[in-house]
């Protein structure tokens, strides 16, 4: 699909095995993924299969060995990204108040302080996020830090939002809350969203489409459309179709592990 909004085509990447053994090991093997504008795609795969590497390549942070990536027909270096890192608490700048952390992408663009702060307040209002923005990041709870990072990833109107297992550090309750919150934010902003997850249920529950990756050397095992309407409810996770989807992914994983 040449006209896809996010177009990942035949991407390959090898890494040296380890410190001693420098022979390159193939991690990403011919990965092709197309994402439509405004689509919510989860990328599911076993641990260590190179999901983070794939996101970093998509964002233009590391260079692939082969293949190409384009965002809206352009190089990823020309696209605007929001990126929620897996270890997001560390990605907050502890010397800045939360409001200025959220405004950081605007600060880099040279917007003045008042304008930045106004935009942050507007965005938080729009998304219905309640964060004590005058506190420093280390004074926030885990969930609040998460929301601050998400707000920061959206403040500069990105073309694509990348999220790398953003909920892995949260407790169960917060996690469920954030799953719904992300869907709400996505519906409001209509941002194109690539969400990496290693939780089957989460991957299905949230997405329009789940892309299942194999173990190393990683390729796309399957792309599954999730047919449920939005907003999603927890009841849907109990219906037959949901369970069938889950089974299908489980089966693919068995192949990988077995």
């Amino acid at each position, binding site marked *: 699909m040449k006209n896809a909004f996010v177009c990942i085509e035949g991407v390959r990447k090898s890494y040296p095995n380890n410190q001693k053994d420098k022979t390159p090991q193939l991690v990403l093997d011919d990965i092709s993924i197309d994402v439509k504008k405004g689509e919510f795609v989860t990328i599911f795969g076993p641990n260590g299969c190179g999901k983070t590497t794939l996101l970093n390549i998509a*964002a*233009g*942070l590391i260079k692939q060995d082969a293949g190409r990536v384009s965002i809206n027909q352009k190089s990823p*270096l020309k696209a605007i*990204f929001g*990126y929620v*890192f897996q*270890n997001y608490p*560390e*990605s907050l*700048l*502890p*010397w800045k108040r939360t409001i200025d952390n959220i405004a*950081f*992408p605007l*600060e*880099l663009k040279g917007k003045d302080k008042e304008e930045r702060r106004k935009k942050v307040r507007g965005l938080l209002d729009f998304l219905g996020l309640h964060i004590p923005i005058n506190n*420093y*990041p*280390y004074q926030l709870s885990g969930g609040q830090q998460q929301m601050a990072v998400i707000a920061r990833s959206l403040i*500069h109107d990105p073309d694509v939002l990348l999220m790398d297992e953003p909920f892995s550090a949260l407790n169960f309750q917060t996690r469920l809350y954030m799953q719904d919150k992300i869907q709400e934010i996505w519906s409001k902003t209509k941002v194109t969203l690539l969400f990496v997850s290693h939780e089957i249920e989460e991957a299905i529950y949230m997405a329009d489409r789940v892309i299942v990756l194999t173990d190393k050397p990683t390729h796309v095992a399957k792309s599954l459309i999730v047919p449920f309407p939005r907003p999603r409810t927890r009841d849907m996770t109990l219906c037959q179709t949901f369970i069938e989807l889950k089974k299908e992914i489980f089966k693919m994983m068995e192949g990988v592990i077995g």
Partner: protein
Amino acid sequence: MRKEIVIGPLVLLLLWIIIHYSGLANPVLVPSPLSVAEAFVLGFIQGNMFYDLGVTIMRFAWGFFSAVIVGVFLGLLLGYFERLYSSVEIIIDFFRSVPATALFPLFMLFFGVGDLAKVSVVFFACSLIILVNTAYGVKNVSHLRIMLAKVLRASQTKIMLKVILPDSLPHVFAGLRIGISFALIVVVVTEMFLGTVSGLGHRIIEDQLVYKIPEMYASIIVAGLLGYILNKGFLFIERRIVHWSGK
């Protein structure tokens, strides 16, 4: 303020009194607290303690602050360019290991017996510590925060100013804290050398030579108080500026 903090000083004072009056130690070498207090007060109102204190502070400040400017600047540079650091690492570590006061006679040959030699040796002692700590801070900046700036397409200059510099501040301040203590030691020692006519170190050595023991203690106490206030004041500022450190 917690009440128990006065216990230690009171016990120390009590021990001093006991040692002086019991004759456990030579009372000439351990004069009574009262005579020291008298020398202390007289030093300020009749003698030129204020002047000597001021001179010591000035030498300290010149040496220390010039070391801050040079040390932080070079530290940022060397921390950022790893190969540059490797190429001068041996030199830095060697000179860092030379006790600064051992170089004072050499500095005197170059800069004479005046203030310039003293300030230079203070500068020498502090700048390397500050440089090494700053470089260490830069090398230990969070990769994730740099990645964040990169994904937002920040320029190298902006990454330096908005991520690397603030992120390395806790280490910079650790260097400054060590530097302050160092600078004070070095400045007082250099003032004890021949040819010096002012400063706390000069007072201490002069009083010692003529056996004005209470006066000597008074000057030592002033030097101690100066160090104490500098350290406490610095900690106060440090906690304000790098408030996130250790959190």
